[in-house]
């Protein structure tokens, strides 16, 4: 019993550190998609590049495309998940993506694109904005008509109009098709 009063201040400090870390993560552009089970006989793609690996990629890209290399080297994290869907996992994947979208709405992410094409693609794009022209994070969620779910999280200081070029260079279709521009400044 004597140990409880002694543990209390330590526990309070640990709880404060963990809470502030969680809040910091929530306030940055990083989103944890969690882990996915690769479906049997379906397509599955996962790419997870942190800052160091992105800098490495920029080293090899800078000769071919210096502008893209500069953009990539400023990123903190890029994560891409593509999960093929069949009758066995479609409902679970769709529910998981809808739950993620609700979570992002609640965490203050701005939903800038919503596309629902009946039986076609179902797309939602979220950004966490730093200022009018640059963003801290971007999340693209796609429940595709071709039977695949796509999740993309780009973290780092990137300008809206650079997103499309980044998607083209990293071969990420949902980013490639975005045509984001900052709002014109009213004079």
């Amino acid at each position, binding site marked *: 019993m004597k140990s409880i009063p002694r543990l209390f201040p330590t526990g309070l400090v640990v709880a404060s550190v963990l809470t502030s870390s969680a809040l910091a993560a929530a306030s940055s552009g990083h989103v944890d998609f969690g882990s996915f089970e690769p479906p049997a006989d379906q397509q*599955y793609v996962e790419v997870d590049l942190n800052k160091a690996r992105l800098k490495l990629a920029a080293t090899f890209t800078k000769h071919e495309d210096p502008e893209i290399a500069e953009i990539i080297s400023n990123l903190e994290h890029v994560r891409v998940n593509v999960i093929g869907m069949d009758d066995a996992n479609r409902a679970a994947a769709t529910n998981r993506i809808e739950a993620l979208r609700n979570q992002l709405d609640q965490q203050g992410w701005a939903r800038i694109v919503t596309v629902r094409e009946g039986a076609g693609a179902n797309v939602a794009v979220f950004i966490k904005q730093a200022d009018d022209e640059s963003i801290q994070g971007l999340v693209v969620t796609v429940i595709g008509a071709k039977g695949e779910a796509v999740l993309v999280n780009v973290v780092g200081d990137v300008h809206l109009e650079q997103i499309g070029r980044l998607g083209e260079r990293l071969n990420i279709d949902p980013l490639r098709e975005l045509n984001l521009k900052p709002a014109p400044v009213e004079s």
Partner: protein
Amino acid sequence: MSATSPPTRRTRILHWLLIMGAATLLVLTIKFVRIFFLSPEATDLHRALSHGSAWPTTPEMKFSIGPGLLAMGRVAAWCTDDLPIEARHALRAIDGASVGIYRLDRRLMPLDRGRMLAAADTRLGARGWVRVVTVMENRDLVLVYLPRKTDVSGRLEVCIAVVGEDKLVVVSAAAQTAALAKMVETYLPRSRSI
């Protein structure tokens, strides 16, 4: 009395020469034998994908090229005029490579691919590697692992597994990042800006 000293000293020198010769021979033998074995990372990756998933594979080829063999290759390249310049640059850039090629029956590929990935992640994670790229399409598979702490400017290490056709290929390689980047700069065409 003094007549016995020179033979004793000569004998001692011969003994030392024999010991050093035997030690050198032993080292060279070990290095030669290791050419036919995979690196620890490539071995772990193969075991995780095959044994860990009860997916039988038959070895077709295994070899490793270490710093010693590469040094000999660089000396040979320096003495040869006919070697293409790209090969010379590649020899300078690479620090080592280990390749294993296995034949497999894709019909027996485990359906629980999550378990395969988990086994590979566990084995390579214990060595400080993380999976950064995963591509599974139909029954083709590509896994790319990098060290948890990536050295951007120094030495690049990578471990790759590829399943295609009826083959499993595991590769682990190390190269100097700057030299590799220089090769990319020299030999890849520059794309036109749009």
